């Protein structure tokens, strides 16, 4: 059992939790993820590691409620437990293994969309800790001001922080891609871009950065089961090769990923997921906390 030592609502539909998981906390690196299972009958849900405290033995996750399992997860409180919490899974971000002096010469652009800000954070923080901060620009986009998360945290570690909102309620008005274009038009040059967010956002960032000739890394989030390479559910095309995101990734060269195929695969269980949600909403298992009905307030 893995204790939730902190549970916080960050924004509409977005929740942060610190979970006691000493083995994960001791070994994790930016770019990796965990798989969480609420109880005996729960699904195995992959979530990116958003922060960690090696001394305290805790790992931070940030989740957005999109369906039955994440809804159920969001209703958990401080002091509750996850039955299972396994990781760190996947490989660490490439730069973790790069020569530090080389890395310091690089100009890096991070782009986070929605809850994708969460997985961007540990990467930028890691760079800051290594003294690679001046040339790290971070663009975080969301639908509206209230949905921008981890702003203070991000400002504290980023070289430059550029919030964007689709509706123009805060920061740059428009999609993250328009901000990338604006920065490049101002004369900014980047050696590498790291984009994490909904697949559709990563797809459009990659279309743009390909044109701008900025190598781009994306973090893929296909449907997973075991997360150890055993089931093949997470397979995707990267160029001509078939890769398993859970062990070969989740980060890949965005210019080689087949996003259309991956988006199609994400929809594999749509009907059943819809049914599970209905069951959760209408059944007596619903204890609030979904952020829609206000049952938890």
């Amino acid at each position, binding site marked *: 059992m893995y204790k939730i030592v902190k549970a916080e609502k960050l924004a509409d539909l977005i929740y942060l939790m610190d979970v006691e998981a000493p*083995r*994960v906390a*001791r*070994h994790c690196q930016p770019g990796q993820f965990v798989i969480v*299972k609420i109880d005996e*009958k*729960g*699904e*195995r849900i992959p979530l990116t590691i958003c922060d960690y405290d090696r001394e305290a033995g805790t790992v931070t996750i940030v989740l957005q409620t999109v369906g*039955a*399992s994440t809804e159920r997860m969001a209703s958990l409180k401080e002091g509750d437990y996850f*039955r*299972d*919490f*396994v*990781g*760190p*899974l996947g490989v660490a971000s490439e730069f973790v293994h790069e020569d530090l002096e080389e890395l310091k010469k690089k100009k890096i652009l991070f782009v986070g969309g929605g809850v994708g800000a969460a997985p961007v954070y540990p990467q930028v923080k890691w760079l800051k800790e290594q003294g690679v901060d001046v040339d790290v620009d971070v663009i975080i986009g969301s639908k509206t001001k209230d949905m921008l998360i981890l702003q203070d945290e991000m400002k504290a570690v980023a070289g430059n922080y550029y919030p964007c909102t689709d509706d123009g309620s805060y920061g740059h008005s428009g999609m993250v891609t328009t901000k990338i274009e604006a920065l490049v038009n101002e004369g900014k040059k980047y050696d590498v871009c790291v984009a994490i967010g909904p697949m559709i956002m990563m797809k459009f960032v990659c279309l743009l950065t390909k044109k701008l000739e900025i190598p781009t890394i994306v973090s893929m989030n296909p449907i997973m*089961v*075991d997360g*150890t*390479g*055993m*089931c*093949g*559910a997470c*397979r*995707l*095309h990267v160029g001509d090769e*078939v890769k398993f995101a859970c*062990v070969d990734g989740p980060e890949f060269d965005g210019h080689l990923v087949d996003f259309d*195929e991956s988006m*199609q*695969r994400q*929809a*594999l*269980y749509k009907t*059943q*997921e819809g049914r*599970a949600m209905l069951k959760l909403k209408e059944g007596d298992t619903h204890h609030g906390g979904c952020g829609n009905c206000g049952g938890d307030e």
Partner: protein
Amino acid sequence: MADILKSTPVREQDPAERARNFEEVCYGYNQEEAMDEATRCLNCKNARCIQGCPVSINIPGFVMKVKDGDIKGAYDVISESSALPAVCGRVCPQESQCEAKCVRGIKGDAVSIGKLERFVADYALKNNINPKTPENKNGHKVAVIGSGPAGLTCAGDLAKMGYEVTVFEALHELGGVLVYGIPEFRLPKQKVVQKEIDKVKSLGVKFETNVVIGKSTTIDQLMEEEGFEAVFIGSGAGLPMFMGIPGETANGVFSANEYLTRSNLMKAFDDSYDTPISAGKKVAVVGGGNVAMDAARTALRLGAEVHVVYRRSEEELPARVEEVHHAKEEGIIFDLLTNPTEILVDDKGWVKGMSCIRMELGEPDASGRRRPVEIPGSEFEIELDTVIMSLGTSPNPLIASTTTGLETNRRKCIVADEENGATSKALVYAGGDAVTGAATVILAMGAGRAGAKGIDEALSGK
């Protein structure tokens, strides 16, 4: 007494009935039937059946006890050689092992050794006959990686010798393939697998789930930081292979591992569990081994029409004969001498069919089986919504790639001594599918036992 040349029939669930549920297919013998069958054994002096058993169970020894109605005595005999008799009695390929060698089989049916073993083991489970707990701990700490048959056996044996053992398992449940691969209708999880695991627990073995060695920690760290003096690797052969044909990443194409894991481990067939499964209406399972049969019969139980597509003929099907027989009875359709060439995909990315080509058998290949060759111009298409690839598995490189000095071979299998499990790295032992590639429960169990012996010899200075 009935015809002595025929084995005592075993009661089974009606095929039409069982094709729609996940209850166990075979009911096994009751004591009367078991004692009847035991009388067929000739108690041979030079018992050839023992040579057919990879762990050399004293077969006439236990069968004679059954004949006398001393079931506990029979269990003690089996326990000398096997730690998982309730499992092996159900899933061993007996027809090519112990029963293949039985002299009764020369003229008539072999003695039903597997069914007798199962009866004895189930009796022990029902009556809580447990292995003796160790009297003295010897103070040595050993780590076991993986809780499949290899790991469980190694851990149990070491605990009996007084070792302090911790088993590390990557998944959230214990049992390896016994829980995530082999379905409930062949190997009940609560009634059999869980009880076998409980027995190992009762010996004082500690279990830590959700630990992926190579990620959550490494073998080197277990030895240097956590005080484990020796490590046994029983991590299995869990990586699925695909064919590499067009369309394989379409929606509706699954590895047998995924399909079976969703159904067995994650209980997708039970509505009260959250895991979704895309059961399919018309399903092709590609392959002909035990795994293919299990996937096919699971899909059938989830409501599909199921075809097993296999490139050789019936004779070469690697699955246990009993499984093929059961699958046919239940209505699985066998498309033999057929090989897929492409998966056909609709405009939404879903499987709509499969192109196949007919095969014929040519000269024998390296495996001694006749090599299937394509018949030119025999291409045809079948309509489907689901394809399950069951083409074999290979060991996970996670451990080998994160452990210094651990040698692997060309097939990514860990190199280990058959006699004592020793690897190229001092005090690290290995056995089971991680060493042999996908094999059988009984071989994995035997390797776990050999590893325990090797570790004991090293740590006790024997």
